[in-house]
Structure formats: structure tokens, C-alpha cells
């Protein structure tokens, strides 16, 4: 068989063979694995018989329901490398090539297949941490919806035929256009040039829908040279963010989060010496950055430039413009004055960042302001080689394509779906030959004449240059699962065929050789193996600051902006970004950090705007801009600016896999660039009105008010410096009294966790890390609507203060492993017990599913398998490989919860005990702790006084949730410290102040979990679960 065929056989066949051997995967769960997937995806005959036997057993109350234990096989290799021991994990370095930013990765593989992705500790940008998209990337590898072989129209074809047909056209092609993403590695760029050199008229266009082109264009005009400013939040004392969600979706958020958290660090030992930075957020949308700001102002995008100009004038002494602007836009004068005062007093330590989607005049104003504050060199660093290529102007691309080209090659882009203003299909049809090369059969590949399957990033060789003087590599963890090929490999293959016989390009056997050659050229003294082992290489380069061309900035700044009654901002979706992760079920089910909505996108509007439009959550809105019109459901998000609609990209896709179709949502691409083609994602002239119809929006959290309960405690820096143990005054603890003598944990370990709420930004990375580590199921939109999502850790978000511009409090909530666990007392079959080391254990195979433990848990952190959620994933030979063999996969009718990653605790304990030592602090890192960008989660042995968790336990800011119930939780929360400007005082309401009195039950969510009469007509997937509607449909009182 061909080399490619052998590699494929090796990987998939070997995996399937291993699957039946006990050696590798403990994936087999309680049902026997012989339930081969039924051909039509429905229930196989054997599975149906299994279920009927269970049902009859229960009804007959006689025969036991047990099934024969399958006979199992050990696959002993013929010849195997010594270092690879079955069951033992191996770690390799790689790079997040398919993501918005190429972070460094450290991937854990077991039995030759990758199962967990984390950050590469040696990588200077993300230093070992990761976000939700990085963690969820593993699921996209084992995705049966991936394009599995080359296709011509509707029928599949072999690679040989595809190459032959394509090269045959390319031979005589005069004009060739190649469209790629903006994050191309240096070797891929070299390969592309090599390929394009062969044609007389060849163009390379870069297409991105979620890009910061206006900002880069402004900088190019102002500084005359290509590059980008890198904010240094750890060096900044005052940060003013103008609609820039730098902790969320704007730029390398992991680096920003690490720096921001360093700047916010609080010195528990010596509170007086705490030097905290202060973050002012001036935003139109409620973003993750806004929720972490000390002061937050709401402003329309059109007024951002005027605001910055007013700030500059105020810095120079003329405060009148700022005051007039504040009145006109309803800004809080005290906060505006505080910004001016702070900027004046922290020259050289201040920083202004503007959102990438804003028009160029805002960036010009920001550049002026930064120069006045001489930020460049102090809090701003210049990077001449940005990770992303400049994005091509859509008008230019349209001009070239409309004349018709001989060959159009689309590598990993989906313009048919997200072309600004839509209508790319017409341009595509003009090309004689259209070739789409992507991981999924997206809308674009469906329209192309040839659809070629790409390797997933974990199956490819690649390199990336995130920054000047920094190079990282991507190496395959597994042979390609399907008949796929890397895009660069295709280019190389075509170039070699096109090239004349003696061309040097023919020397390279495949893309791997070409990559090695490129590395050898640039890094002569470094061996290929060291590159792969460390995964990242730094060369210290000195970058001179570019000179500031004031006149160009002045001209740019004067561009006047005309605004309509309504404005709209289009942001990348927090989880699926611009739609490239839309077929990833983990990301679709990840609640949005602000609205907690899953499986959908909507138009976020403020409560006042909703009232003005007479709209309830879920009602349809008609959003029209310059002729194009969209129907989008309304989502009420307190904190959004009035008369502003915030839309997200990535949904409303029509092809690319089962999950994409299940997600639904609205494609907002037609609105891109309708108002100002240079700033496509900011629409200043928009009409929004209520439309007929409703769509049920699903939230995993429906009530956001604290009702004065001391669940989340925070304080100001002044409070903290006055009394480090200020937490005690914020709640009342009854005298602790125990009926029984408490269990003695002094001997051996006592596992506890500390969560520093001052560091946690609420980014949800922990949720996906936990889902990947512990084989947690995805339940789908319908079950989420019924309140049955399975996440073991959730990030609760509470709102306090002014309902229009509230302060947000993020709190990761997971099993607290209580010493007096209420769940253990009520389990009738001893399925949940307590280990002598303080863990609340859950024996899945013993649980019979009475669900009393979940009812009795005051934190409601237990999750129940209401349906056989894992069945489909278990019976699919490819998806099954994503499971972690160290964790049992749970069957229907079984309760599950956070186990503090007991498989990792045991691994560390066994290894230490085998060596005769004790477990050192830091040897056990839970999955959420390892992923957390802010390193807010700390886990360890509380009995060891030197351990970090024991130290944090002694901090004055420590409190525990619902401590007054005397269940003795083992998760210690550290109160968040806010740093409001002394002049303004506690503008951002503390969690505790006025809110307890006000009766506003911030439940802006739609009427709770209940399908609307309108929706009942919608197809309900199972006939027996039709709901009936309560007579009291509107009950929404305090």
C-alpha cells in the first residue's frame, strides 16, 4: 500500500485495535464495547436488545440486568520503542497554528494519541497557560465531521486524481489568486512565494473577518512602517481601555491577562506596599475587560475619538471640551476628571489602548495621547514583525476576482460564509478553477470545484513567528486520521510538478524536509531536535521605536464621523471566534463569560434600549445598515451602551458539520463594512426596530443578583490597607459548633484549593480544561435549556450596583469537597464517601441515581447523566479516542462531580510513594489550575505549612462560600480588591453595599426554563418530552 495509506492504516487501525485491548484505553464504560455503531447512526439491534433487557429486567423485578463481561484482548506489539510504555503519558511541544494567535503548546499523548493540550511553559507569550479555544482544539482533531478525502463536487476522489486535474489547469494558468488566513508561519509564507513565482499574474490575498485592520492601517499611516504596538500592562499604573477587550478577544489575551494580573497583584504580607494599577474602561459593549475595570464608562463608538481628543485637551489644561462631552453623552464627570488627574500624575506609567475594530481616527487620537504620556518605550513596545499579515482590502480582492482568474486557491478560509457584505459566491464562480483546502467541508468548499481535506494542526509540521525574535514549531502528535494532507504539502507538491526538472524545489521529499531546510537556514547553530524539544526559540533583537509623524496623525484624527440614531459593533464570538471553531461542541456549549448564553448568537442591547424598543429577551430585532437587513434575537446585557447593538461573528453557518447545524444562530457577515469599509466591524448608521417572532435563547445561569448574600466578597484597596482582614466585617459567622468530634486530618495529606478572585478575570478557560481532562459530556442546546449542562466547574457572574452599568463579580464554582459533606450523608448506597485526605469521592459504578446528593448540595455543583450523553461519542470509533483513559466514562443514570482531578493526585502519590518520598507542593496540578491564564487557582496539601495553598489560606482576604452552614468547604476564596480613584470613591458598587436593600432582581433572563408557546411548534426531538405552559407565564417578581 502507498506510504500515505500505510501511515493512515498505522494510526486508525492501530487505534481501533488498541481500543479492544485493555492495555490502552479504559474508554470502555459500563456497557460492553461490542455495541458496534449502527450503520444509520441510530440504535443498533444489539443496543436495542440491551436496553429492552434492562427495561424488562426492571419490570420483571427478577433477572439481574447485568450483561456478559466481554472477552478482551492484549495487543502485544511486534516491535516497539522502549520509551513508549502503554498507559504512560508523553509530552511534546507544539504551536496553536489554527487559532487567532499562535500560542505555544505542551501536548500530552497516551498510547500514541494526543488527549490533552496545555500551554508550553517555556513560551514567553503564554508561559504555560491556555484559553478555552486552545483546550478545545483536541476535540476538533477527533471530529468525524471533518472532510475525510478529496471531493470533486459531490463525489469523493483520490489525491492523485485531484493533483493531476489541478496541475493540469495550473500549467496553463496565467492569473492565479491564493487566499489565506493572516496567521501564516514563515515557512508557509516562503512556500507560498515559491508557488506564486511560477505564474505571470499571481496575487496572494489575506482574508479575515475578525481582524484589527483599521488599527494596523492607522499605525502604518502614522509611523510609516509595518508593525504593531505591544501593550505592557505589567509596567502600566493607569490603563485606559477604549472599547478594547484586551483580556477577551482583542489580540493575545493570554499575554495581556498574565501581565494585567501581575499589575493587580496584592501584597498580603505587607498591604501598605501594594502597588496596584487602575483600569478605566470606556466601552460600548459589556466585555470581559469592562467587567474587570475599576471604573467603567459607557460611550457610543462614534464618540470615542471625540472623547480621546477631549482627554488630550484636558491634559493640556482645557477641561471644557471634556465636560461638554460628558454632559452630552451622560458620562460621570467625577470619573472623567479622575482619568485626567491619573494620566497627569502617571506620565510614563500610563497607557491608552483602543479596540481593533474602531475607525482610524480613534487610533490617531490614541497615538497622540500615548505620545503625550510618553508611553512608547515604557508601557508600549514596538514589534516590527507582527504574527498576522496585513489583511487585503475586500474591494481590491473583488476587483481582481470579478475579472475572472484562471485558478482561485482558498487555503483555510471561508469567504462564502464571512465575506464582508456577503456575495463572494458570485466572485468565486467567475474563477475557471476553484480549489478549497480546509479541515471541514465548509460553505466555501461546497461551492468550490475541488474540496481538498487539510490536516488538523496536531497532524501537521509547521512553524510560527508570533513576534520579532521569536520562533516556535508545530509537530504532529499522530499520523493523519483520515485521507488528508497539509495545505503547505499540497502547495509543495504542485510546485514540484510545475517546476522544471533541475529546480532546487524538487530536492525536498515532502513538506517536513522543506521545513527542516528553512530552519537550518535561519538557525544554523540550533539542531532540529532541540527546536522540537523546546518548541520555542528566542533570538534577542533590538527594535528601534518608529518615529511619530504628527502631521499624518493630525490629518487622520480630523476625519469626522457622522453617527445615526443606532450604532452596532461586531465582535468575534468569545468561543467560536469567527466561525472556525463552530463545529466544536465544547466551545458551542461554553457559556459566554458575560451573558452565560450557549449554542447561539444574538444582538446584545441594554435594558433601557430594550424597554424603549418594547422588546423582551428572545424577541427578534430587525437591524438594517445601508440597505442590508438582518433578523437577530435580542439579548438583554446590562452594561451595554444605550442605542448600541453588539453582534458576534461565527454563527449562522450553513455547512461544516453536525454541530454547526445544531448551533443555528445568525450570520452577521452581510453587515460587515456596510457603513465604513475601512472599519467593517463598526457600524455608525444603523436602524434597529422590533420585528415579529421570537427565538428561545438558552442561558446556563438565569439569576444574577446577590440579594445581599455574602457569596462573593470584595473590597477597595483603601479598605484592605486599613484592615487586611476586612472580610470578617462583610459577613456574620455563627459560633462554630459540631455535634460530633470532627475527623482528624492531621495525619497524611489534606487536599485544599485556593481561588484568588483578585486574579480571576472570568475567562472560562478552566471549564474546557476540566471538560477535556475528565471526559465530560456535551448535552446539546435542548438539554442545556432544561438546566442539565454537565460542566464540573462553572464561573458564576453576579451583578451589583446600578442596573444600567453594573459591577460584575466572577466566581469559579466547583465541588467544595466539604468535610461535613451534606451529599455524603444522604446517599443510600455509599456511592459518595470521604477519603482520609479530605476528598469527597464519587464511585460512579456504585451510584444508582437517586439524585438526593445533588439536591442536598448547597452549591449545586453535582451533575447527573439524565440521558446517555456519552453513548454517541463512545460508539464513534474516531470521537472515542478523545477520551482520557485515566478517567471512567459515566453511563446514563449516574451522578458525577469535580474530583479535584483525583487521577492526577493518585499519579503523583503513586510515583512519590514508589520512590519512598512524600508528594512535594506543586507536584499535583489540577487541570483548571494548569490552564488558568491568571494562575488564580492553586491546589495543594494544606497540612504542609510551606505549600502555596496553606500560605493563601492564612491571607486576611480569605473567605469561604456559605461557611455559615458549617459544611466546612475546602475551597478558600481570596477577596477581590478594587482600586477606585480616591476622588470618585466606590463608584463600582461593592458586592455588599447598596445592593442588599434594592429589590431589583437582576433577572434579565427571559422567563425561566420554559419553552414558549411559539416554540412548542418547533420540532421537539423526542415526542414524550413535550412541555405544557404554566398559566402564570409572566411570573417574574423579586
Amino acid at each position, binding site marked *: 500500500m502507498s506510504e500515505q495509506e500505510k501511515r493512515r492504516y498505522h494510526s486508525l487501525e492501530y487505534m481501533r485495535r488498541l481500543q479492544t485491548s485493555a492495555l490502552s484505553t479504559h474508554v470502555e464504560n459500563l456497557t460492553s464495547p461490542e455495541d458496534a455503531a449502527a450503520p444509520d447512526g441510530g440504535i443498533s439491534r444489539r443496543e436495542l436488545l440491551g436496553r429492552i433487557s434492562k427495561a424488562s429486567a426492571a419490570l420483571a423485578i427478577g433477572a439481574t440486568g447485568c450483561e456478559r463481561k466481554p472477552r478482551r484482548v492484549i495487543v502485544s506489539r511486534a516491535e516497539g520503542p522502549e520509551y513508549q510504555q502503554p498507559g504512560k503519558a508523553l509530552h511534546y511541544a507544539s504551536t496553536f497554528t489554527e487559532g487567532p494567535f499562535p500560542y505555544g503548546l505542551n501536548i500530552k499523548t497516551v498510547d500514541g494519541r494526543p488527549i490533552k493540550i496545555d500551554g508550553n511553559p517555556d513560551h514567553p507569550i503564554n508561559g504555560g497557560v491556555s484559553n478555552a479555544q486552545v483546550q478545545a482544539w483536541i476535540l476538533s482533531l477527533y471530529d468525524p465531521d471533518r472532510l475525510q478525502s478529496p471531493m470533486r463536487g459531490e463525489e469523493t476522489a483520490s489525491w492523485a486524481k485531484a493533483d493531476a486535474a489541478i496541475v493540469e489547469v495550473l500549467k496553463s494558468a496565467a492569473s492565479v489568486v491564493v487566499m489565506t488566513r493572516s496567521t501564516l508561519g514563515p515557512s508557509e509564507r516562503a512556500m507560498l512565494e515559491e508557488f506564486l513565482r511560477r505564474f505571470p499574474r499571481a496575487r496572494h490575498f489575506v482574508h479575515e473577518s475578525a481582524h484589527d485592520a483599521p488599527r494596523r492601517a492607522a499605525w502604518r499611516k502614522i509611523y510609516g512602517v509595518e508593525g504593531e504596538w505591544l501593550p505592557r500592562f505589567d509596567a502600566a499604573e493607569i490603563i485606559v481601555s477604549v472599547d478594547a477587550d484586551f483580556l477577551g478577544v482583542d489580540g493575545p489575551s493570554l499575554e495581556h491577562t498574565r501581565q494585567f494580573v501581575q499589575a493587580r497583584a496584592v501584597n498580603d504580607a505587607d498591604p501598605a506596599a501594594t502597588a496596584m494599577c487602575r483600569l478605566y474602561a470606556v466601552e460600548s459593549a459589556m466585555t470581559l475587560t469592562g467587567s474587570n475595570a475599576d471604573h467603567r464608562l459607557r460611550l457610543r463608538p462614534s464618540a470615542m475619538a471625540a472623547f480621546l481628543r477631549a482627554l488630550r485637551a484636558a491634559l493640556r489644561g482645557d477641561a471644557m471640551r471634556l465636560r461638554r462631552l460628558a454632559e452630552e453623552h451622560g458620562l460621570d464627570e467625577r470619573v472623567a476628571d479622575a482619568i485626567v488627574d491619573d494620566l497627569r500624575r502617571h506620565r510614563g506609567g500610563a497607557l491608552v489602548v483602543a479596540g481593533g475594530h474602531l475607525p482610524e481616527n480613534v487610533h490617531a487620537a490614541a497615538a497622540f495621547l500615548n505620545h503625550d504620556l510618553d508611553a512608547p518605550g515604557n508601557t508600549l513596545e514596538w514589534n516590527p514583525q507582527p504574527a498576522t499579515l496585513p489583511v487585503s482590502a475586500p474591494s481590491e480582492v473583488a476587483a481582481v476576482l470579478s475579472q475572472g482568474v484562471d485558478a482561485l486557491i482558498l487555503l483555510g478560509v471561508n469567504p462564502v460564509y464571512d465575506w464582508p457584505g456577503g456575495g463572494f459566491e458570485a466572485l468565486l464562480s467567475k474563477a475557471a478553477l476553484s480549489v478549497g483546502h480546509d479541515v471541514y467541508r465548509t460553505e466555501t468548499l461546497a461551492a468550490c470545484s475541488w474540496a481538498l481535506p487539510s490536516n488538523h494542526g496536531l497532524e501537521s509540521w509547521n512553524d510560527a513567528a508570533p513576534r520579532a525574535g521569536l520562533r516556535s514549531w508545530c509537530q504532529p502528535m499522530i499520523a493523519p486520521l483520515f485521507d488528508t494532507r497539509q495545505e503547505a504539502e499540497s502547495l509543495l507538491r504542485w510546485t514540484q510538478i510545475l517546476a522544471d526538472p533541475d529546480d532546487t524545489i524538487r530536492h525536498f521529499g515532502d513538506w517536513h524536509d522543506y521545513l527542516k531546510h528553512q530552519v537550518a537556514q535561519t538557525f544554523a547553530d540550533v539542531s532540529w531536535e532541540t527546536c522540537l524539544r523546546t518548541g520555542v526559540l528566542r533570538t534577542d533583537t533590538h527594535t528601534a521605536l518608529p518615529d511619530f509623524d504628527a502631521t499624518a496623525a493630525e490629518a487622520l484624527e480630523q476625519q469626522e464621523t457622522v453617527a445615526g440614531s443606532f450604532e452596532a459593533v461586531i465582535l468575534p464570538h468569545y468561543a467560536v471566534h469567527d466561525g472556525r471553531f463552530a463545529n466544536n461542541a465544547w466551545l458551542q456549549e461554553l457559556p459566554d463569560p458575560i451573558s452565560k448564553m450557549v449554542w447561539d448568537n444574538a444582538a446584545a442591547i441594554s435594558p433601557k434600549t430594550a424597554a424603549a424598543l418594547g422588546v423582551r429577551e428572545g424577541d427578534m430585532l430587525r437591524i438594517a445598515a445601508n440597505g442590508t437587513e438582518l433578523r437577530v434575537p435580542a439579548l438583554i446585557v446590562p452594561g451595554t451602551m444605550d442605542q448600541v447593538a453588539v453582534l458576534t461573528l461565527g454563527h449562522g453557518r450553513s455547512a461544516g458539520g453536525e454541530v454547526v447545524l445544531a448551533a443555528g444562530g445568525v450570520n452577521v457577515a452581510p453587515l460587515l463594512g456596510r457603513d465604513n469599509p475601512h472599519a467593517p466591524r463598526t457600524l455608525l448608521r444603523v436602524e434597529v426596530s422590533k420585528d415579529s417572532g421570537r427565538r428561545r435563547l438558552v442561558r446556563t445561569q438565569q439569576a444574577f*443578583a446577590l440579594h445581599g*448574600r455574602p457569596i462573593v466578597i470584595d473590597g477597595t484597596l483603601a479598605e484592605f490597607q486599613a484592615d487586611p482582614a476586612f472580610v470578617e466585617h462583610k459577613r456574620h459567622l455563627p459560633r462554630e459548633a459540631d455535634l460530633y468530634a470532627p475527623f482528624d486530618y492531621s495525619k497524611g495529606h489534606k487536599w485544599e484549593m485556593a481561588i484568588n478572585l483578585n486574579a480571576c478575570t472570568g475567562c472560562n478557560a478552566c471549564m474546557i480544561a476540566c471538560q477535556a481532562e475528565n471526559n465530560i459530556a456535551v448535552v446539546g442546546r435542548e438539554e442545556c435549556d432544561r438546566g*442539565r449542562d454537565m460542566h464540573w466547574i462553572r464561573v458564576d457572574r*453576579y451583578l451589583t450596583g446600578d442596573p444600567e452599568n453594573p459591577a460584575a463579580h466572577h466566581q469559579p464554582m466547583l465541588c467544595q469537597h466539604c468535610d461535613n459533606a451534606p451529599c455524603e*450523608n444522604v446517599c443510600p448506597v455509599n456511592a459518595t464517601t470521604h477519603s482520609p485526605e479530605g476528598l469527597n469521592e464519587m464511585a460512579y459504578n456504585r451510584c444508582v441515581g437517586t439524585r438526593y446528593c445533588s439536591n442536598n448540595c448547597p452549591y449545586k455543583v453535582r451533575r*447527573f447523566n439524565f440521558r446517555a450523553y456519552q453513548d454517541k461519542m463512545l460508539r464513534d470509533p474516531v470521537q472515542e479516542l478523545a477520551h482520557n483513559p485515566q478517567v471512567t466514562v459515566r453511563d446514563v443514570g449516574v451522578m458525577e462531580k469535580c474530583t479535584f482531578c483525583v487521577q492526577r493526585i493518585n499519579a503523583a502519590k503513586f510515583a512519590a510513594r514508589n520512590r519512598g518520598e512524600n508528594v512535594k507542593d506543586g507536584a499535583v496540578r489540577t487541570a483548571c489550575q494548569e490552564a488558568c491564564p491568571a494562575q488564580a487557582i492553586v491546589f495543594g496539601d494544606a497540612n504542609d505549612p510551606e505549600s502555596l495553598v496553606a500560605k493563601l489560606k492564612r491571607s486576611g482576604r480569605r473567605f469561604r462560600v456559605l461557611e455559615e452552614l458549617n459544611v466546612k468547604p475546602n475551597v478558600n476564596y481570596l477577596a477581590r480588591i478594587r482600586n477606585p480613584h480616591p476622588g470618585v470613591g466606590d463608584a463600582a458598587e461593592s458586592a455588599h453595599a447598596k445592593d442588599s436593600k434594592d429589590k431589583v432582581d437582576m433577572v434579565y433572563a427571559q422567563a425561566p426554563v*420554559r419553552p414558549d408557546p411559539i416554540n412548542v411548534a418547533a420540532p421537539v426531538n423526542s415526542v414524550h*418530552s413535550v412541555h*405544557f405552559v404554566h398559566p402564570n407565564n409572566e411570573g417574574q417578581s423579586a
Partner: protein
Amino acid sequence: MSADTSILKPAPLIEGRITPRELDDAVFAPVESFPTGRWLIAVSVTGAIALLFPICIANTILNGIGTWGVNQPVGWGLAIVNFVFWVGIGHAGTLISAILFLFRQKWRTGIARFAEAMTIFAVFCAMQFPLFHTGRPWLAMFWLIPYPNDQRIYQNFRSPLEWDVFAVGTYGLISFMFWYLGLIPDLATARDRAKHPFRKFVYGLLSVGWSGSNRAWTHYEKAYLMFAGLSTPLVLSVHSIVSFDFAVSVIPGWHTTIFPPYFVAGAIFSGFAMVATLIVILRRMFHLKHIITDNHLDLMNKIVIVTSLMVGYAYAMEFFIAWYGGVAVERYVFMNRAMGPYAWAYWTMVICNVVVPQLLWIRRVRRSVLLMYPIVLLINVGMWFERFVIVITSLHRDYLPSSWGMYIPTWTDIGLFVGSFGIFLTFILLFCRFLPSVSVTEMKAALLHTQSAHGGDHE
């Protein structure tokens, strides 16, 4: 002029003079006659409804508990509401047969047998729910019982659900034995009256060779007294243990110490209401008006009034304690009950259980079937909603606002509830058809006492 003291004299047990043989004929008439058309229709209707239950159970087992409306904050739904409702109804039977026996209330003989039968059928319906509401009933039916196994792991005897297994199991068994013991002499009478050899064989087999020998009667009477003595604390303990299912938790609105007496009063209240509902129909259908007299209804309604006030007191006391205790979470839970999304269920409960039964103060209402029947029906509805309010509202909004959520029953939930009524009524109809619904032996003993005005008191 002496006041009319006739009101004080105990009303005659049986209206008019009747000889034991006539009594036998009256009671055994339905048992020995060919089933009437009306009875056949009734059984086929309730049988059809009862079929709903196994269908919904099979659907639940095949597709998982997800087919019900239960979700994350509200882990228990209609199944547990039905369980407590049926166990509560069962307790009235034991109350009449045991507690009133100990208090030597003669009027109990007319309705004792029927009430005990109702207990057994109610407990049978109740026992289905805790088993089938578990996620894996095919394992739960084994692992809840401490039988010797090769895993060496047994049950957690601190859990109220484990107590339930012992309590409801014992209660079902003791009530069945108590009922069967009372039935043996009547079965002997039936055996001797039976014409058809098969009926003679069946009744003969069931009457375990009873011949009325006095040496057997001494042990029989002592045993009957012992069962009455055991059942009284048992019935109070079983419904206390059922209330422990909620009182032992930390959920606001559940962990209050008033629950055991509150649940027992509720049980007696709903039990008597159900007995009254069925007795009135039984009386008309089998012409036993002279045995189950209006006086019986009057006395039962008096007990209903008492327990209605007790339940009303409990509702008020819960609110007061929540306010007096000063715990913010408790206060919110009770305010949420009265004014939250489930306020409609709460006010239905209060009106049906406390307001409407006050009409029973009027003697005429108590004695007239037409007036008291709707009240009694509403009480059944009210008591079901009381359990609904307790189970659902406390679970759906408790400590952390982030985990609040709603509960909506699905068609499978409702199918199970209606199906359980079908099963209950089918058993009742079968009982009335095949077994004597009034305890003839005790009736004859009481007859002797009242009619022959023979001195001495009947033991």
C-alpha cells in the same frame, strides 16, 4: 325542662335491627353475585388508565430519567411528590384500624376493612416511585437491600433514603399482615357460603382452615391487639421518616423540625379525605348505607377538620419561624413560595387545605354527602399541591442565585401520576368485587353489643 340529650347518646352503629345472617347476605352480596355491567365498565376504565404507568416506566428506563422534567437544581419532581402523596393516603387506613381500635371507637368497624385495603394499595403505588425515579432502577432494586455480596460494600444506614427502604417495607408488610389477619374469619364465612367449587377452593385455601375454634380466637385476639399496638407507632414513625427525606437536608425550607408532625398530620388529613371519597361511592354502589351510616361520615369529617387546622398551623408556623429565625435565605424561600413563579401552587394548597375545610364546622355539611364530597375532593388536590410546593419550590431557588432554575413536568411525569391513580382504583374495584368490604365478624360482635343491650363491654 331537660335538654334534649339524645345528641349525647352514641348513635346506633347500624340503623334498624339486622340478624347476623342478613348481615352476611348484605355484605357478601356483591362478592357472590356475577359482576354487574357498571363494575365491568369501571374496571376497564381504571385498568386502561393503569396501563399508562408501565408504559411511562418502560419509556423512562429505555431513555433515561431525562424523559422526566427533573434538572440540575430541581433533582426531584412529580415522582417524589406522588410517593409522599400515596404514602400519606395509606396512613389513614392504619390509623382507622389500629389507633381507633386502641381507643375502642366502635364506629370504626364499618370502615376498618376498606381503609386497611386502601392502605395496602396506596403503599403499593407509593413504593413504585422511589424505585423507578432512580437513574438505574435495575441496580437500585438490589443495592438498597443489605444482602451478602462479593463487593463487601453495603448501604449507608445514615441516609434517610435507606431508612425509607426499611420503613416503607416494614409498613407495607405489617399493614398487609394486619389486613389479612382480620380477613381470615370472613374468608372462612365466604368459604362456607361458596356454591361454586373453585370459589370454595380459593376462599378455603386463603382462610388457612379457620374453624372459629375458641382456642384459635384467644391467640387471634391477642395478635390483633398486638398488631394494633405495633401499627400505631409504626404509622407515626413511617411518615416521620418520609418527612426526614426532606428534614435531614440543608435545603432552606426543608430542614425544619416541624416536618415530622406536619407530615403525619398531613397524612392523616389526606388519608381520611381519600377514605371519605371512596366510602361514599362504595356505600352507594353496594347498598351498605345502613352499615356505613351518615354518622360515620360525620365522625370522619370531624377528624378532617382537626387535621386541617393542624396543617394550617404548620403553614403559618413555617412563615413565622422563617421570619423569626432571621436567616435571609429562609426568608427568601418562603417569600418566593408565596409570591414567586410557583405562587399559584402555593395558594391552591392553602385554599384547599385550610380555607375550604372550615365549612365542615356546620353539622349539616358534615352529614350531607352532596356538600361534603366536593370539600373532600379538594382536600386531596390540596394535599398533592402541598407536597409539590415543598419539593419543588425549595429546590428551585436555594442558596446560590447562580444555580436557580425552574421545573416543568413532562408528559411522562403526568402519565405516571395518572397511571398510579389508575392502579389504585383498579385494586380498589377488584377488592370490592372479590373480598368482603366490611369486616362481618367484627360487625356481628358489635351487633351483639348494641342490639341485645347485654351488659358488659366488648373487649
